């Protein structure tokens, strides 16, 4: 069992879940801004999460720069800001998720835009090269980083880019990020949402959800692998379990089975395939429902079970295989999650992580699985900023060291 509680600075002082900063800055925040200024770290403000597959980077772009500041600002800083904000793609693999950016956000008394950027972990050397060529190290900034890569690549950051990492625990950052983003997003599409009528494909629609009184909740982070956390308060959580069958497994198997090479490609293929040609269903074995045990005929009895037969192996398409892989991995996460929810006695589940990015198929499957197998007891919730919470948590640590 894993739990932790840590003394928290301002977030706790601000009381409960009420944000210490936010887009709607109130009088309390303004009064405090002077004292905040003194402890405010110098720009640039980054938060980084280096995962097994993707590096997630959040960057706060101040929009309230005064003329005086503008003059004082060193050229390196300007150039970094311009590079990041004027592009939506970096190199061949870096991408800024423009649709996720949060404008008019007040952080530490400064107002600006929070940008969300990602690139594959295997391109980290190129990123470090860029940091070196842009003389990032001359800015004397602290780079807060979380995720396993913060440990693995710490020395690379030092030797290749002359940067000292401030390493942070990924689960601490994740939870902090989730709670923060949910609290500050009040405009546009609701940060948290769910699927209404998940068991009826025709009536299944996405609906906003208000995460008031969120505790206790089960937080399922689906990255390359999966971590499942039971969260009882901002500072009280435990990692219940995890599984190695995650996003990395989906992509890895798809690449081997279909020859594709990207997540987007794999998803696209999956969307066109039919998993029932690959999987053996209950009705394939029993001719219909297995009534003795209440198993519906459409349920999958054996994932890839039809592939035991040579004839069937020869008759399936790559798209079918991609779809079956997606369904297998997703349903498995669903059943482990459901068991954890039962064991922990928690009814709300929040799914996050980049496996769910542009992956409505999996989200609906999860929503369905939670609802169907729990007979409506469990609710699956999703968040717009899926995979960025760890990076956001790292940024918050920079601004409000705990």
């Amino acid at each position: 069992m894993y739990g932790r509680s840590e003394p928290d600075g301002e977030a706790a002082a601000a009381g409960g879940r009420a944000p210490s900063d936010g887009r709607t800055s109130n009088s309390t925040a303004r009064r405090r801004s002077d004292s905040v200024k003194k402890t405010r770290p110098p720009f640039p403000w980054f938060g980084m999460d280096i995962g097994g597959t993707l590096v997630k980077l959040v960057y706060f772009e101040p929009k309230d720069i005064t003329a005086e500041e503008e003059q004082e600002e060193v050229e390196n800083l300007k150039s970094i800001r311009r590079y990041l904000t004027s592009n939506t793609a970096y190199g061949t693999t870096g991408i800024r998720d423009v649709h996720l950016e949060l404008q008019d956000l007040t952080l530490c008394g400064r107002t600006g835009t929070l940008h969300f950027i990602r690139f594959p972990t295997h391109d980290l050397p190129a990123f470090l090269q860029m940091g070196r060529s842009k003389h990032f190290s001359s800015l004397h900034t602290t780079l807060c980083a979380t995720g396993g890569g913060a440990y693995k690549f710490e020395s690379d950051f030092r030797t290749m880019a002359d940067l000292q990492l401030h390493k942070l625990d990924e689960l601490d950052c994740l939870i902090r990020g989730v709670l923060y983003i949910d609290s500050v997003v009040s405009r546009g599409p609701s940060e948290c949402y769910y699927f209404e009528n998940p068991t009826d494909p025709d009536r299944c629609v996405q609906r906003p959800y208000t995460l008031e009184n969120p505790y206790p909740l089960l937080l399922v982070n689906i990255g390359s692998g999966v971590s499942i956390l039971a969260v009882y308060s901002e500072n009280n959580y435990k990692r219940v379990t995890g599984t190695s069958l995650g996003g990395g497994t989906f992509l890895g198997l798809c690449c081997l089975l279909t020859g594709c090479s990207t997540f987007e490609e794999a998803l696209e293929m999956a969307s066109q395939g039919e998993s029932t040609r690959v999987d053996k269903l209950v009705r394939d074995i029993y001719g219909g429902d297995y009534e003795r045990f209440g198993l519906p005929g459409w349920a999958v009895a054996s994932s890839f079970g039809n592939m035991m037969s040579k004839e069937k192996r020869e008759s399936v398409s790559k798209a079918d295989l991609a779809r079956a892989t997606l369904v297998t991995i997703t349903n498995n996460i669903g059943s482990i999650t459901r068991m954890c929810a039962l064991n922990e006695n928690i009814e709300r589940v929040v799914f996050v992580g980049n496996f769910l990015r542009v992956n409505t198929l999996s989200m609906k499957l999860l929503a369905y699985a939670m609802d169907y197998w729990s007979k409506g007891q469990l609710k699956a919730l999703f968040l717009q900023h899926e995979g960025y919470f760890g990076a956001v948590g790292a940024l918050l640590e920079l601004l409000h060291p705990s």
Partner: protein
Amino acid sequence: MDKSITLPPDEIFRNLENAKRFAIDIGGSLTKLAYYSTVQHKVAKVRSFEQNAELYEISEQEEVTARLHFIKFENAYIETCLDFIRDHLVNTGTKVIKATGGGAHKFKELIERKLGLKVDKEDEMTCLIRGCNFVLRNIPHEAFVYAKHADSEFRFQTTHPDIFPYLLVNIGSGVSIVKVESEDKFERIGGSSIGGGTFWGLGALLTKTKRFDELLQLASKGQHASVDMLVRDIYGGSYGSLGLTGDLIASSFGKSATADKGFSKEDMAKSLLHMISNDIGQLACLYAKLHNLSRVYFGGFFIRGHPVTMHTITYSINFFTKGEVQALFLRHEGYLGAIGAFLKGAEEDNPNQYSWGENYAGSSGLMSVSPEMNPMQRARSGTFDMLEMDRLERQLVNLPLLQDPSSYIPDTMDLTEDALAREYWLSCFEEALDGVVKRAVASQPDIPEAIERSEKFRQKYRHKLQTLRQQPFAYGSLTVRSLLDTREHCLNEFNFPDPYSKIKQRENDMALRYYQKAVKSLEQLSWEQRQFALVRGVLAGNVFDWGAKAVSDVLESDPEFGFDEAKRHSLRPALLLQGPPHKCALFFVDNSGVDIILGVMPFVRELLSRGTEVVLASNSGPALNDVTNGELQILTERIAAMDPVIQAGLRDDRLTLVQSGSSSPCLDLSRLDKVLAMVVRERQTDLVIIEGMGRALHTNYYARLSCESLKTAVIKNSWLAERLGGKLFSVVFKYEVPPGKPSQEDSSAPSTPS
């Protein structure tokens, strides 16, 4: 595949003539056939004749007993086998065959046409659970823990007297997780679609390897770290704060998306195996936790004796429960469905009201499933695997006086774990084989074909010993008891029900002649002297044991080896019979002749005189020269005729003879006759005496009882004596008082070799 094999009728599908109640379980690749049959074989009977010169008459009579036959073979042979059965089936009135398993549907028409029986389908899961309950209840060493790198890979478990509740995780093409609460109450509480079919199907796609066994073979040679993303691939080391070590898998197949290079079939198969095993293990643990269950059995074709999958599942369960739950496997896992289907069809015979015992002579035992073995070879050698279960005449239960039935282990030494001891005993039994064969022939002097049968016996038992040398785990833990029992089963198999009957008769006769003299001389002694003499007598009598090679050598060569001679080998024991008398003593007796008549009976007499009731427990059936219940009845009557104390004891029902329910030279206190248990309870037994090497040394030496107990034997084996730090003909005299109970005397005398 060659489907036109010739089936040897003596070895496979035995006793078809009287077969009835067929059941069949057809899986993806293997068919399991079950039937009930009666076996006619010789049994030894004794009958008393008042006027006869002989003490009693020995006769070998034909007796019919019930036996269950289970045969497992590849689906490819199904037609050949059905033809064979049709051709050999004679007296059956059977009209239906119970069927279960995924293939039952496919072969329905073929079965009905070939056998002329109506196929009656039974629910697969129900059959599985029924079968599981049956083996857990009737086969003592059914369940085992698998430990890949241990000295003995298989660690057999003592079955808890109450087998419920348990979790059965059946890994077929998918996974079913079933909670079993009683014989009839079970529930499928969950499952997973990621199972054996996923390994096979996905494995076939990834490696272009078609056969399941070959996929496992590939997996056993692979390295998963090149395919999987490990914690150290993400962290550079371990994730310390969570206690996740660097070599844990963070993402299965996580490296196959980023690398441009290809992967070896072996590595992919290994990664897949880990992925699936871990996932199943994790779910099983989550369900076990939710339902608060600690006994979790794994079965299904994914497991079925494959060391590779047993290892990965064991690893997974150990990881996810931090060692709190052990993955358990079953020796007869492949037969569960067939056994269950059979039981469904035999409900009117009430098979569950009987006790059944595995017949070692007719059962193949757990196969060696070394992953190094070529999968084709494996399939071949496993073509016909058999299990035979004998219906026991008596229903067997625990001795009510066991201190903790769930931790009771009858056997003193586990030869599966002790390689030195194993080597010694296997050789010992091999060397003794000639003598046993000779004795068997001598017991049937008027039957010419006895020699031929005795040779068949020799072959069979030698083959068993050879098998056990290779696979000590074949029939559960290998013990001196199992070696002895296997020999008895093989002797019975070839109609040598009681090779020692004549010797027993002669010795009983001789010992009876000395009884009165012995009692008289005892009565002349002072009380204290008498106590010593009595105990010495029991020990001296116990030297006369034809089962022990050292003794039988002397007995064969020196007809003058007498009781007085044997007495000199004994020693002074503790004073057991001081203090207030016991309410009732239960005495497990050993050999015929001098042992029972001149050793045990005078002791019994003394107990009776002190006001202690006595229950004499002897074997139900013959084993070596041990006295059987039938013989003891006659002997006791004869003694009663000479001795008023014994006579009064019988008359007043203060001396009772019961049968143990066993036909073994050893003693399993967890499988005793139900009547014995009842008598023990009724009489408020407060002293248990266990006599002889087989019962007090090879077994029960460490048994803990809830009342006073005495285990006594003369060590008639120099190797064993040396092991225990003594000499040949040393004495074990182990008097124990359960904790918290006042003893008759303060000092107990543990093993005290003279």
